[in-house]
């Protein structure tokens, strides 16, 4: 039996390759502390994947590394080992593994973890990003779009709204940078974002609109907090947007052919 290339682990590996510029710049600017956070996140996520492999015969996936990277980059600072472990465990188990692993989940486990940590421990400060780290999100997105593993329409939809809001002066620069990083790390996951072309445009645009809304109306929120909240809501809305896009597609075909 001959087989092609695009199974789940190939996509996970390509996503890792796409995130490499972002991760390297972040590690270079964050130093040892960043490395320790990443190590802790990888360890906790990997242990949960191993537990689910042994208990539920669920094949582990390299996407664990992507989840760990996103959590380590965006989680609030100074949480300590216990709180971090609690937050990561909640996100990875309830957000991904109980649904059957990467590919069957409905929300990004990193988004769930980050929301849990943000709402659970509001006293801790959210991280900020140096300019070079945030700019490294652009090559990550380009690699992702060129290999077809990140939804180009979603990134474009978010970019259009983001650019319009920046021109109108609605988006302060720190929010723009944090929203860009969260867009690439959290929302551009091919599994949990919308899957139809129209749904992806809407999903990206919705994320951009939510970021603008929160940054204007949510007083006292840190830029990363705004981005994570917008990513959570946008990814929860993805199935709805997909359903709307499918209904339109089916209606258009019915009109054209008389049947689907």
């Amino acid at each position, binding site marked *: 039996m*001959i087989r092609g290339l*695009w199974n*789940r682990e190939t996509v996970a590996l390509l996503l890792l390759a796409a995130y490499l510029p972002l991760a390297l710049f972040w590690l270079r600017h964050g130093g040892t502390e960043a490395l320790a956070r990443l190590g802790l996140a990888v360890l906790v996520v990997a242990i949960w994947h191993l537990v689910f492999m042994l208990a539920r015969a*669920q094949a*582990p996936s390299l996407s664990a590394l992507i989840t760990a990277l996103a959590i380590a980059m965006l989680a609030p600072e100074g949480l300590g080992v216990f709180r971090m472990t609690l937050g990561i465990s909640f996100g990875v188990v309830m957000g991904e593994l109980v649904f059957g*692993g990467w590919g069957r989940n409905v929300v990004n486990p990193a988004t769930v973890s980050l929301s849990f940590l943000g709402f659970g421990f509001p006293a801790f400060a959210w991280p900020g990003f140096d300019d070079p780290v945030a700019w490294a999100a652009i090559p990550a997105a380009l690699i992702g779009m060129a290999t077809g593993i990140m939804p180009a329409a979603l990134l474009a939809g978010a970019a259009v709204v983001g650019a319009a809001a920046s021109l109108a002066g609605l988006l302060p620069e720190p929010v723009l940078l944090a929203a860009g990083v969260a867009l690439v790390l959290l929302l551009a996951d091919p599994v949990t974002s919308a*899957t*139809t072309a129209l749904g992806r445009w809407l999903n990206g645009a919705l994320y951009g609109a939510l970021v603008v809304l929160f940054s204007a109306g949510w007083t006292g929120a840190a830029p990363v907090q705004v981005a994570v909240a917008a990513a959570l809501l946008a990814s929860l809305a993805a199935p709805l947007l997909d359903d709307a896009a499918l209904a339109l*597609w089916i209606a258009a075909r019915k009109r054209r052919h008389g049947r689907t």
Partner: protein
Amino acid sequence: MGFLGTGAGLAPHFPSPPDSPDVFDVITEEAAVCPPVGRALHVAPLVQEGDRVSQGGAVACLRHSPEIKFVAPIAGHVASIVLLPGRHLSEIVIYREDGDAVERHDTELAHSVAGLRRLMQSAGVWQWVRRRPFGGMPSADETPAAIVVMATDTRPGAPDPRHALDGREEDLSLGLAALARLTDGPVMVCAQGDRSPSWPALPNGRARLAVRGRRHPQGSAGICIHHLCPAGIEAPVWDLHAEDTAALGALLRTGMLPMTRLVRIAGAALIEGHSVRTHPGADLRQLTRRIVAPGQHVLMSGSPLDGHVARWLAPRHRQITVMPRAPARPGRHWLVAALDTSTRGAPAIPTAALTQALGAALPAAPFIRALGAGDEETAMRLGILSLLEEDLALADYVLSEGGHLKAQLRAMLDRIQAEFAP
């Protein structure tokens, strides 16, 4: 690369040595009458072992509609009749004998539509027609909502139908005119628009030319049907290869059904590729005898994507693939096996590769998810009724599913047929 889906698709590459330029006519020493791929058919043999048959002579008929006949692809005597339990046809093997006895049919019949059907059924053209939904040949009295004639084939290693049709424009026009009498709907001719603009003028207003791209699966019948005139449970759509349409035209013109068709032999285990004109049910071993490289190999009827290991060329196939036999893998450690496989398999990730593997013709990720979840109603709304296994073969290959996707599609089609079909 075009826009709006005309450039959609992939160009999977399977290594094959260069073709030799000569095209020979080959009638193999042995040939077999086999059922079309996929469906078990109850048959009643009309000959006995040892009987002589002429080319095109009936050797068996369907048990429940005896007007649909299976015909001998070569003239000779019947060597063996193999029926599986329940009178399912396995194969009827014929040994060739010298002489050119060819069955003649009365073309006067074809003046009426019912007579045309009877002629197609008794001459053996009927089993070259395939219906959707659910696949297989149409029942004897079915009227299609549309007929799609495939003058393009984008499967890797497929012969170009235009070469097969060289000099047969008149027969093709006759065949298309005959097909137009079988349906009240359109007759679509799917052809590649970028090779030569000199496509023969279509005979009447009923037949329409649909231009398709050159990447797979744009020349796949199911994707064309999904795009042009989707099949429904109450609206079956037939598809027929352009070369078979020309054969139908020749049958109407001369009373004799030409059996030879252009077949390409390709694959990595060959010394050189070949194109031959041979007949359905040809012996693959004889066709590949002097061109196979030393070493173990697998003979497949059909393309590398959707073919199956076989001894005889299947009725609708126009490709023979010769692949090196993969060496048996030693057993793996249980932990390694647990790490990369599990009972449920990994789900498909919606990427651009998946979208293109279905030719960007339908929302790929929702469709694959509906297949995996067993959600028949969503799958029907997204167009599963126009598709068969061969249309998903590229997606199955690209996603490295190893046949799961095709099996899921067949299981769902069978369930839909049991639940929804009258």
